[in-house]
C-alpha cells in the first residue's frame, strides 16, 4: 500500500493544486484527483491522464481563486475590526501614537512641497536641459563671476556657431506701464527687454496675436496672459496701446504665463530696440560693457564643455585688453547654485535632512510605543497561539494595527498640511500648493506612503509581539529583555535627534541675532536711498539745498551705488610702497563731503573730503582700514594711490564698515570724489518724520529723476532682505526643533504611562512599607533622566559639528560657546524630567488601598 504508483501527475500541476486547495483540507479533493488520475493512467495511458489532470485543474482555477480571495477579504476585515477595537481600548496610546506621527508627517510633507518647488525651477521649459546662460568670469582665478555679458555676444553666437540653435539677450527690470487711453492707472510690471529669439529658447506658447521676424524692430510689447488681464480684463489685448517711459507700444501678442517657477519672471517682453531709446547708455551691439544677460540654446547632443572651450575667449578676441572670459552655466543650475557664496542647493539638502530627522523621530516614537504595549498584549498572543493562530497570521494582525494607525495619522497630516500651508507660504515666501502631491501620477507614491511607513514602523513590533511563546507568556506574563534594550536605544536615538535639532535652532538663532546686533560701522536706521539722474556739482548743490530745506531731512549725499551691492571694483590699482607683482582687488565708492556724516561712519585717520577744497574732486581718496591692512601701508595719509593714471593723495582712513552681507569679509575699499559717477542718492531723515520727508521728496522728485516713478528705499529693509534666507532657516529650524522635542516628549509620556501602569502594585506596596511619594518619583524618573543625559552627551559633539559647518558660510560668526549647548541640553532635560515626574507623581499619590484592594 505504501508504494507509490509508477506514474504521477506533472509536479507543477500537483503543486499548484495543492496551493489552491490548501485552505480546504476537509473534503480530500487532492486524494480524489490522484485517484482519478491513477485510474485514467492505468486504463487509458499516462498522457491522457496528464491531459485530464491539467484540464481539470484549469477548469477549477477560477472557482478556487474566487474562494481564496473572498477568504482574504474576510481576513482583512477581521484584522481591521480587531485593530479598531484595540485602538479604542487603548485610547491614550493610540492618540499619542497617531498624533506624534501626524506631526512628523505634516512637517515632512510641507518640506517636501518646498523642496519640490525649489527643484522644479526652469523645469517647465521644453529645452531646459540644453539652455545655458553665459556668465563672465574675471581672470578665472579671482572668481569674480557675474551673469552679465556684452550685448554683441548673442548675435555672434548665432551667426558663427553651428551648435547654437537660438540665442537671446535679456535685460529684466520692473517698469511702470500705463494704458494709453488711461482707463487703468500705472502698474508695475516686470519687463524683459529682449528679442524674438527669447521664445525660441524658453517655452511660452502663443495665445493670441503674432510674433513676426521683424518684431525686434517694432515699438511693440508682448504680454503674458496675467498681465493682459490686468490691463484689459477679458477683452482681447492684441492691437491695444501701452505706454512705457514715454514710448508708445502696441500689444503684438499674448503668451502663456510661465508654467513653473523661473529666475526669469517677466510679465511682459519689449524689443531691445525700445531699450536703446530709453536708456542712452545701452549700446545695441558692443563688446565694451557688460550690459545684459545672454542665453543660448544648443542643439540636442552638443557637448557643452567643448562649446564652452571654443567660446571662452570671445571677449578677448574683440578687445585684447579685456580680462574677462566666458563660461556656460546650465539653466537648471541658476536657481540652485549661486555665482558666489554658498549654493542654495545646500540649504535645500539641509531642510530635506531635517524633514527626514523629524520623520525618523516620529517613527521611532511609533515603534517604541507599540513594543512597549507588548506585555499587555502577550497574554492575547499566547491565547491566540494556543487556539492555533500561526505567527504569520499574528504578524499580519499587528501589521494591520500599525497600518490603521499610520493611515489615520496620514489623513490627519494631510488635513494639518492644508491648514498650515498658508502660514508656511508666508514664512518661506513661496507659492506652494497641495495639488503637487497628486499631480502627474505622484498620488500613487503619496498613497503608498502610509503603507510603506506603517509597514516599516509596524514590522519590528509585529515581529516581537508575534514571537511570544505561549508557555512562557502564560506562565510569567512579562515582555523580554531584548526588546527592553532595543526600546531604550530607540528613546536615546530619538532624543539625540531632537537635541541636535533643538541646539541647532538655538545656534542659528544666536548667529542671526549676532548678525543683527553686530555694529555695521554706519547707522542704517532712518537711512533711505534712491537712484538719481547724473548731475553736475552745481545742480546737485541746488538739489541738496532744496532737500535739506525741509526740517525732516537731516542730510543728503550721493554715491555710485547702494552700499550693500558688490561689483564696482578693480584690481588695476597702485600705491606707494607696492611690491612688484602685488595685486589687490578694491571696491570703488564715490562720495562727497556730506557722505561721512550722512552715513555716520567714523574716521580713524586723516580727514574726509571737504567741500571747500576743489582739489578733493578726483585728486584725493579715502581708504578703509581693510585696504590699508591689505596693501601694507604703515602711515597711509599723504601717500599716493593710483588707478593706473595720475597719482592721487590718500587723505584719510575710515573705520571698517560692512559694505556687504556678513557672509563675506569686509573687502578693501576706496572712496573717491567723482561726482559724475554718483547716481545713488542717500538721505538721512529725522526720527518720526518719515511721512513728512517722503511727501517733500515726492514734491522734489522731478528734479531727482524725471524719467522714473517715485521710488525711495529704506536701508533697514535692504539689510533685512540680505538675511532673509537666514531668517527663514532660523524660523524653520525653530519649528522643526520644537516639533521634534514635542514628539519626543509625547513618546516619553507614552512610555512613562506604560511603566507606571506596570508598577502600580509595586508603588502601592512600597507606600505601605513606608516609601514617600517623593522617593518613588525620584526612583522612576531617575531612569529616564539618565537616558536623556546620555542623549545629551551624544548630541553635543554632533550638533557642534553641524553648527560649525553651517557657520563656515559666514565671514563673521558668533562663537559656539559652551552655554549654548548647556542651555539646550538643560531645557530638554528639565522638560523630560517634568513630563515623567508629573505622570509618576500622579500614580504615586494614589492611596495604596486603591491599587492593592483586589488581592
Amino acid at each position, binding site marked *: 500500500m*505504501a508504494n*507509490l504508483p509508477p506514474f504521477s501527475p506533472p509536479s507543477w500541476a500537483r503543486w499548484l493544486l495543492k496551493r489552491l486547495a490548501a485552505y*480546504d483540507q476537509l*473534503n*480530500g479533493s487532492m*486524494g*480524489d484527483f490522484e485517484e482519478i488520475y491513477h485510474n485514467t493512467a492505468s486504463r487509458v495511458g499516462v498522457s491522457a491522464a496528464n491531459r485530464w489532470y491539467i484540464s481539470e485543474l484549469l*477548469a477549477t482555477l477560477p472557482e478556487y481563486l474566487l474562494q481564496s480571495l473572498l477568504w482574504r477579504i474576510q481576513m482583512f476585515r477581521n484584522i481591521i475590526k480587531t485593530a479598531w477595537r484595540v485602538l479604542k481600548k487603548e485610547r491614550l496610546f493610540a492618540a499619542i501614537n497617531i498624533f506624534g506621527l501626524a506631526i512628523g508627517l505634516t512637517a515632512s510633507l510641507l518640506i517636501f512641497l518646498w523642496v519640490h518647488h525649489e527643484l522644479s525651477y526652469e523645469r517647465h521649459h521644453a529645452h531646459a536641459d540644453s539652455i545655458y546662460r553665459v556668465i563672465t568670469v574675471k581672470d578665472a582665478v579671482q572668481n569674480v563671476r557675474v551673469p552679465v555679458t556684452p550685448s554683441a555676444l548673442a548675435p555672434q553666437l548665432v551667426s558663427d556657431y553651428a551648435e547654437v540653435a537660438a540665442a537671446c539677450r535679456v535685460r529684466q527690470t520692473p517698469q511702470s506701464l500705463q494704458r494709453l487711453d488711461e482707463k487703468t492707472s500705472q502698474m508695475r510690471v516686470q519687463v524683459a527687454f529682449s528679442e524674438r529669439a527669447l521664445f525660441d529658447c524658453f517655452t511660452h506658447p502663443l495665445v493670441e496675436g503674432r510674433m513676426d521676424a521683424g518684431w525686434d524692430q517694432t515699438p511693440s510689447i508682448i504680454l503674458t496672459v496675467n498681465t493682459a488681464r490686468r490691463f484689459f480684463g477679458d477683452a482681447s489685448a492684441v492691437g491695444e496701446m501701452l505706454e512705457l517711459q514715454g514710448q508708445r507700444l502696441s500689444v503684438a501678442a499674448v503668451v502663456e504665463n510661465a508654467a513653473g517657477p523661473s529666475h526669469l519672471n517677466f510679465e511682459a517682453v519689449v524689443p531691445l530696440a525700445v531699450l536703446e531709446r530709453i536708456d542712452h547708455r545701452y549700446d545695441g551691439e558692443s563688446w565694451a560693457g557688460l550690459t545684459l544677460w545672454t542665453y543660448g540654446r544648443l542643439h540636442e547632443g552638443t557637448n557643452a564643455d567643448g562649446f564652452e572651450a571654443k567660446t571662452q575667449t570671445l571677449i578677448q578676441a574683440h578687445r585684447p585688453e579685456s580680462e574677462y572670459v566666458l563660461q556656460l552655466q546650465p539653466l537648471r543650475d541658476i536657481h540652485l547654485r549661486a555665482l558666489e557664496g554658498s549654493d542654495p542647493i545646500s540649504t535645500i539638502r539641509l531642510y530635506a535632512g531635517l524633514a527626514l530627522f523629524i520623520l525618523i523621530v516620529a517613527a521611532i516614537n511609533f515603534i517604541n510605543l507599540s513594543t512597549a504595549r507588548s506585555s499587555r498584549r502577550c497574554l492575547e498572543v499566547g491565547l491566540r497561539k494556543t487556539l492555533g493562530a500561526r505567527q504569520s497570521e499574528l504578524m499580519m494582525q499587528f501589521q494591520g494595527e500599525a497600518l490603521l494607525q499610520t493611515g489615520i495619522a496620514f489623513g490627519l497630516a494631510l488635513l494639518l498640511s492644508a491648514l498650515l500651508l498658508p502660514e508656511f507660504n508666508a514664512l518661506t515666501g513661496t507659492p506652494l500648493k497641495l495639488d503637487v502631491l497628486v499631480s502627474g501620477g505622484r498620488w500613487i507614491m503619496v498613497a503608498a506612503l502610509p503603507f510603506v511607513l506603517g509597514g516599516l514602523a509596524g514590522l519590528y513590533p509585529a515581529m516581537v509581539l508575534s514571537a511570544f511563546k505561549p508557555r512562557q507568556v502564560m506562565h510569567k506574563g512579562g515582555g523580554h529583555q531584548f526588546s527592553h534594550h532595543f526600546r531604550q536605544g530607540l528613546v536615546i536615538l530619538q532624543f539625540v535627534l531632537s537635541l541636535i535639532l533643538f541646539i541647532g535652532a538655538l545656534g542659528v538663532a544666536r548667529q542671526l541675532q549676532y548678525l543683527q546686533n553686530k555694529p555695521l560701522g554706519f547707522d542704517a536706521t532712518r537711512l533711505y536711498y534712491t537712484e538719481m539722474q547724473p548731475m553736475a556739482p552745481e545742480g546737485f548743490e541746488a538739489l541738496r539745498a532744496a532737500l535739506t530745506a525741509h526740517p525732516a531731512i537731516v542730510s543728503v549725499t550721493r554715491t555710485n551705488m547702494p552700499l550693500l551691492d558688490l561689483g564696482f571694483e578693480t584690481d588695476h590699482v597702485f600705491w606707494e610702497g607696492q611690491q612688484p607683482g602685488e595685486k589687490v582687488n578694491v571696491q570703488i565708492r564715490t562720495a562727497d563731503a556730506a557722505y561721512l556724516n550722512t552715513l555716520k561712519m567714523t574716521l580713524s585717520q586723516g580727514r574726509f573730503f571737504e567741500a571747500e577744497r576743489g582739489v578733493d574732486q578726483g585728486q584725493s581718496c579715502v581708504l578703509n582700514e581693510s585696504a590699508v591692512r591689505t596693501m601694507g601701508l604703515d602711515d597711509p595719509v599723504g601717500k599716493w594711490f593710483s588707478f593706473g593714471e595720475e597719482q592721487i593723495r590718500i587723505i584719510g582712513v575710515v573705520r571698517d564698515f560692512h559694505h556687504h552681507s556678513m557672509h563675506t569679509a569686509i573687502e578693501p575699499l576706496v572712496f573717491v570724489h567723482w561726482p559724475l559717477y554718483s547716481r545713488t542718492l542717500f538721505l538721512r531723515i529725522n526720527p518720526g518724520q518719515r511721512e513728512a520727508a517722503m511727501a517733500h521728496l515726492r514734491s522734489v522728485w522731478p528734479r531727482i529723476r524725471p524719467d522714473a516713478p517715485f521710488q525711495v528705499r529704506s536701508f533697514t529693509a535692504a539689510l533685512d532682505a540680505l538675511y532673509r534666507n537666514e531668517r527663514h532657516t532660523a524660523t524653520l529650524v525653530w519649528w522643526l526643533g520644537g516639533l521634534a522635542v514635542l514628539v519626543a516628549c509625547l513618546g516619553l509620556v507614552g512610555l512613562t504611562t506604560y511603566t507606571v501602569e506596570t508598577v502600580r502594585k509595586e508603588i502601592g506596596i512600597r507606600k505601605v512599607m513606608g516609601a514617600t511619594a517623593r522617593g518613588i518619583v525620584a526612583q522612576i524618573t531617575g531612569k529616564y533622566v539618565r537616558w536623556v543625559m546620555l542623549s545629551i552627551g551624544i548630541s553635543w559633539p554632533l550638533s557642534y559639528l553641524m553648527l560649525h559647518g553651517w557657520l563656515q558660510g559666514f565671514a563673521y560668526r558668533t562663537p559656539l560657546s559652551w552655554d549654548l549647548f548647556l542651555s539646550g541640553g538643560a531645557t530638554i532635560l528639565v522638560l523630560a524630567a517634568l513630563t515623567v515626574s508629573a505622570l509618576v507623581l500622579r500614580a504615586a499619590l494614589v492611596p495604596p488601598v486603591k491599587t492593592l484592594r483586589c488581592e
Partner: protein
Amino acid sequence: MELLTVVEEMLLLTVFKLGDNAYGVPIRETVMEMTGKRIVYGTLYNSLNQLVRKGYVRTERGEPTAARGGRSKVFYRLTDYGTEALQFTRDRRSAIWADVPDLA
C-alpha cells in the same frame, strides 16, 4: 424545514444511493451520469462543503491508499437532518406533481 434546491437534492440522493462508497470520485461520476454534464471538481467540492455547513451531510475519513497518492478518502454520509430534508422535499414534490396529467 426548507425545500432543497435541485443541486442539493441531486447530491444528497447520490450520497444516499452510494451508501458506504460515497466519496468524491463516485459522487462526481454519478452526478455526471444523472445530468449528462461535465462537473468541475471545484464546483463539486464547494457544493459538498455547503451541504456540510447546512448540516445535511457529515464527513468521515477513510484509510489512505497508494492510488490516491497516499491520501485518505473522505466519505460523505447523510445526517438524520439530511435524510429528513430529502424526505420532506420528496413529499412536497410528489404533492406538487400529483394532480398533473401527462404534459405531452
